[in-house]
Structures are given as C-alpha cells and as structure tokens.
C-alpha cells in the first residue's frame, strides 16, 4: 500500500499550508490523480481519512479529480494517450510505473517515430490542485 506514503505527503503538506496561513481548519482538499500512476482512489481516500483524524484537516472534504495521461514526442511532435499504448502496457509494467511513473520511458516509445524521447504532458501522478482553509 504505497498510497499510504502519498497520503502522508498530502496531509503533511495540507497541515503545513494551513499553519503557514494561520488557518484554524482545512475545509477542502482537491487532489488530482494522474492516469499514468494509476493510484487507487479508494485506498488513498482510506489512508487520508485515517491520517487527517486529530489534525486541523479532520473535517476536510476530499475531492478527487482524474487526469487523463497525454504523451508528446519530442522528436516528431506526435501526441498520444494511454489507450494507444495499451498493448505495450502489461500488468507488470503498469505496476512498475505505478511506483515510479518515469520508468514509462523504459517501456514506451512514440507510436509514430519510435523515439523514447517523449514527455508526459499531463496525467503523470498525484498532486494537490486546490485547498480551502479558514
């Protein structure tokens, strides 16, 4: 359950932000889940719910947004998505990427020109998009 480690980072960041802004309470945290990392929302939510107890985030509403992964080749400019690379992404490879999304460069290449020099434009991993404190 490495989602727990991600949850610790989210709650730690939220509390720190709250303190820096002299907030009494964290009201809402909007968390983006990138398609590439494929983090399980349920597990992450469970961990966040446990970790926020007895903190200024205890009543915080957790909102999750999914972000589709988009790749762009730096060599030829071609843009593609996860579905187009479905065949290459076996279950084992998906698991590797789940832990360290950058290893996608070990397994995928541009469907058009074959270059491995591509960027993950969107949908890489987990980040906090928005937070409301008071």
């Amino acid at each position, binding site marked *: 359950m490495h989602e727990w480690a991600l949850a610790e980072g989210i709650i730690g960041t939220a509390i720190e932000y709250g303190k820096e802004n002299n907030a009494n309470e964290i009201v809402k945290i909007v968390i983006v889940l990138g398609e590439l990392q494929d983090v399980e929302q349920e597990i992450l939510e469970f961990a966040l719910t446990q970790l926020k107890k007895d903190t200024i985030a205890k009543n915080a509403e957790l909102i999750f947004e999914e972000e589709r992964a988009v790749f762009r080749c730096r060599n030829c400019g071609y843009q593609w998505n996860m579905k187009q690379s479905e065949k290459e992404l076996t279950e084992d490879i998906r698991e590797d990427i789940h*832990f360290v999304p950058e290893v996608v460069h070990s397994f995928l290449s541009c469907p058009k020109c074959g270059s491995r020099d591509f960027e993950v434009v969107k949908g890489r991993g987990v980040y906090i998009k928005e937070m409301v404190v008071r």
Partner: protein
Amino acid sequence: MDPRVKGIELKLKNVRRIIPIVSGKGGVGKSLISTTLALSLKELGFEVGLLDLDFHGASDHVILNSPISELPDEEKGVIPPVVHGIKFMSIVYYSTDKPTPLRGKEISDALIEILAITRWDQLDFLIIDMPPGLGEQLLDLIRFIPRGEFLIVSTPSPLSVNVVEKLVALLKEGNHRILGIVENMHAGNNLTEEMAERMRIKYLGEIGVCDEIDSLIGEPESIMLSDFGKNLKKVAERIVSGDRPR
C-alpha cells in the same frame, strides 16, 4: 502543490546521517565507493541504507549482485529490500534494468518519487550514490535534503581534480557540509591532497589502484577483503568518528 516534497522529510526523519557520494567527474569510482562504504559501515555495526540515484548509470545492484526481478514489498510505502545486510533502493527495481532515458524534469520527478515513497525507517547512515556532474540530482539533493554531508571522490588525474574543485566551490558557496575527499586510484602525485588543502576540506585517505577490483564485482564479501575494501573501511572509521550504533 507537490505533496511528495513533504513526504521526503517524513520518510527521512529517522535517518541519523545522510551521506551523498559525489564527484563532478565520471568514472572515478563513486558506485564502488558508495557500495563498499555502506558495507563497511554495516560491518562496524551500524544500520545502513544505500540509495542509487544514478538513474542513467545505476550499477550498485551489479556490485551487490542484488536480484531485481521482484518489486520491493509495500506497506505504508515501499520497503527497501535488505541486500548483504543493508537496505537497498534503486530505480532498476522498476525499470527492470532497461535503458531509461530521462531529461531534467523527469529525473527530478523520479528522484522525488523514490525519496517520498521509500521507508528507510531507522537508519544510522544513508549512503547516496550520485551521478557525475552538477545536474538535477545534485541540485535536488541540496534543495530537498539540506542536511546531507557530502563525501567527495576524485582520482589523481588533473582532469578529475579540475572538475572536482568546481564541485567543492559550489558546495562551499552554499555552505553545505563536506565530510572530506577520498582519493581513488591513487598513483604518483599529490594533486588531490593539494586541492583538498587549497579548498580547506579534509583529505580522508587514498585508495590505490586495485587491479583485481573488476573481477570482484558482484562479490561484495571479496570486495571487503580486498585492498580496496580495507582502505575504504579506514575511511568509514574516520567518517564515523564518535558515532555509536543505535
């Protein structure tokens, strides 16, 4: 906001000392020194972790002859497998040792991710094997782990000494802690020692050219018994100074 940055701090809070092995120049023996230093500290009775951050040239797993076919266990994070008594983490567990071409931002992201998810728990020492150069890994480490104590490696080659001096200047400029310099492949001149004096950093010792070292790769026990291993152990003892195992 990137929640992983806070995660790094949390994951390293029970690590007593963090020692990045740096050089600026490639091919000076950072990986062998990192791995052997970690094993030496373990022999001295300490709890030790080894993190290979040289993503393009990861080789500590080869030196340790560590199997990489299985993913590390996960439990509230990722648990680094214990290899020859040390906790070991490397990108190769996930890249399955395939070529992994990464550019700047991608290197930073992989580094932050690994630091944010790896559960070292209680350690006396975390040794970090760094890539050559003054690029992402060095700058990120300075940024995210400001308490790192840098161990610098050079060879007696004027080419190495020249580059390493610039690294030392950069670290000193930022008031970063430098443990000292280890001279690898020592042969015939005092350029490294003179540079250490000039830059006012500690000269922690020399390791002579070890002809047999390549034939010992993958056999950590034999490396420890070689002249290379014996000299590194002396360096480890100097680094430890007053420290006692937990």
